[in-house]
């Protein structure tokens, strides 16, 4: 019973960390795309 | 002479004929024509009031399209009903500045209202349930249950019950 509980808690811990990482990765994508956009915007302004 | 002509022109612009409401789809489909200009739209307020800094959002729907309207907090009290299922929202006239890409709201397409006029207060509508539909549903239910029962009885009689 104790071993099963320990195994479940370990699985839960991995799951929580995994979900946290997964929630962060789209934000990283969005921020990176924003920087690409910023470069484009600045280059447009400077060329005008 | 020039001054008199200007006064007449400005007066004409405020004449009901020239300041009549535009449809929302006319504005949306010709955004460059109306960008930054005062527009007048009439329609039903729908959905929800969503608060922001110094004001709130509400969406207005006419016969063709809908658009978001930004209003100052002082106007909130005027709104009684918002359209949804079973509710007819307040029918309003909004005069405001149309923004193709609002600088204040991260590029949103919106109208910043100058005035809000309630033309007709909304109301809660009684649900209209056609009697024929109820009769049909009831009859269908009875016939189907009977048919399912008969089929089940026949299938049990013919062979052992199948496992799902």
């Amino acid at each position, binding site marked *: 019973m104790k071993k099963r509980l320990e195994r479940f808690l370990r699985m839960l811990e991995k799951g929580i960390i995994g979900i946290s990482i997964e929630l962060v990765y789209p934000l990283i994508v969005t921020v990176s*795309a924003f920087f690409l*956009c910023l470069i484009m915007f600045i280059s447009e302004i400077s060329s005008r | 002479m020039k001054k008199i002509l200007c006064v007449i022109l400005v007066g004409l612009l405020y004449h009901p004929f020239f300041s009549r409401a535009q449809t929302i789809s006319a504005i949306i489909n010709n955004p460059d024509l109306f960008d930054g200009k005062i527009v007048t739209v009439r329609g039903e307020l729908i959905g929800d009031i969503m608060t922001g800094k110094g004001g709130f959002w509400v969406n207005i729907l006419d016969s063709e399209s809908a658009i*978001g309207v930004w209003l100052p907090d002082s106007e909130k009290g005027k709104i009684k009903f918002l359209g949804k299922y079973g509710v007819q929202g307040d029918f309003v006239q909004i005069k405001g500045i149309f923004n193709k890409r609002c*600088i204040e709201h991260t590029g949103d397409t919106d109208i910043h209202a100058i005035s809000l006029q309630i033309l007709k207060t909304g109301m809660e509508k009684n649900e209209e349930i056609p009697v024929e539909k109820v009769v049909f*549903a009831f009859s269908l239910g009875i016939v189907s*249950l009977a048919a399912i029962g008969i089929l089940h009885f026949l299938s049990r009689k013919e062979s052992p019950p199948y496992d*799902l």
Partner: protein
Amino acid sequence: MIPDFSKDDISVVSHYLGKILIALGIAQLLPLIVGLISGEMAAVIDFFISIIACFSFGSILLYFSPSPYELNWRQGMIIVALSWFLAMFSSALPLYLSGHFEYFLDACFESMSAYATTGLVLIQDLDHLSHAHNVWRHLMCFIGGQGIILVALVFFFRGGDALRIYIGEARDDKILPNSITTAKFIWMVSFTYLIIGSLLLCFVLLLNGMPFSRAFFHGLCIFMAGWDTAGFAPQSLNILYYHNPALEIVTIIIILLGATSFGVHYAVWTGRFRELKEDFEVKILMFTVFLTYLITLVGFSGYVMRFPDTFSFFRSTFYQVISAHTGAGYTNIYASQLAEWPQLAIFGVIVAMAIGGCMNSTAGGIKVFRIGLFYKSMKREVRKLAYPESSYIKEFFHHQREISVDDAMVKTAMIITVCYILLYLSGAIIGTFFGYDFLLSLFESVSAAANVGLSTGITSTSMPAFLKIWYIIEMWAGRLEFFAIFILIRFFVKLVRR
């Protein structure tokens, strides 16, 4: 002699279709309960009629088709192909009874769009639709995204039968050894994110002053359609309704996760966190997202100054590209505004839609896995030329395990890719025939076939009926990735010849 289709196949197929119809009837109990709680008696009656119809026809099919002992691959594929049409018709009934659709065809279009997680809509006066019907629209997206068959897999089918049907649904990744266990895992991931995603959206809307019940309803609907990359929203303005950049960011998180392979979710959730960085598909997805966004940005050169600042420029452009690439179809601008974009920018979005998301996710399109496979295959061919003839060249990639590129894999991927391209072009040509601009027709066709849902305004109730039917076929074919449909066509041809 190779056995061909026979009348016994009809009996087997009918049996399983009967079960699926009953399952769909059970699924409709949820909107019925929502209708009862909300006091929407008209909606309750609509769903009551539909549920009775599903149970009745399902029972008739089960009665006349004896219990089969074993399902073969072809029968599995036929069941998959036909079940989508069955689901479309049976689910369109309560929608049509709501009075929000001019024609039954429009209701069928809506239900197929939901199940295929497309998101193109023909509903009228969505802002006055009952909660029950709205929940049903979004629930169909959820069921369709998980796979109608997966629903049945978990509850109705036996092991061997289940695998054949699972493959027919264009999910050929064995995440776990047993297909039932895989199906259960997919549902577990979906329900976990349902709770997290809905609460996150609800929280953002509560901060916006929405009452809790409305915030929760909107959050739940947006999640179901976002996670399954369907793109339905409870209001006619779609995401533009909320005027909320924070909400848009949350939807980006949800749609990107929805477009990620369930295999990657499984790896990350069980401690293999590096899989997110090392997985071949995720790498290709990131590359194509940035590439298509770059194409869109280049398309906007000369037009950038029309935007007041970088944030509004980013919000308008990136949201459309990520929504297109993941196949979600959420939009924060009007269709007419999208149609006004510079041509290269529209082309960037078309390419993003055409490529689609990851295999074994809720996304549509050609899939980034195939794009990556072509790249690896090309690399292998170039290396073969560079090395002596007698050399044996192998190219590997990491996708949950190390996989070597082989000709059979590339051949299958090529066939499916060509089918997608032909489907995209067919819709574009038909749209042009009806008088629409070619680029916009191509956009709409790709949107339908890749199950995206972005529209430039062509999809409307006034669209020609033939085009509506063609888009229904495109959504269906795109969702099933063709093989199941080819088997179905062959089945009918053989039956007719007999």
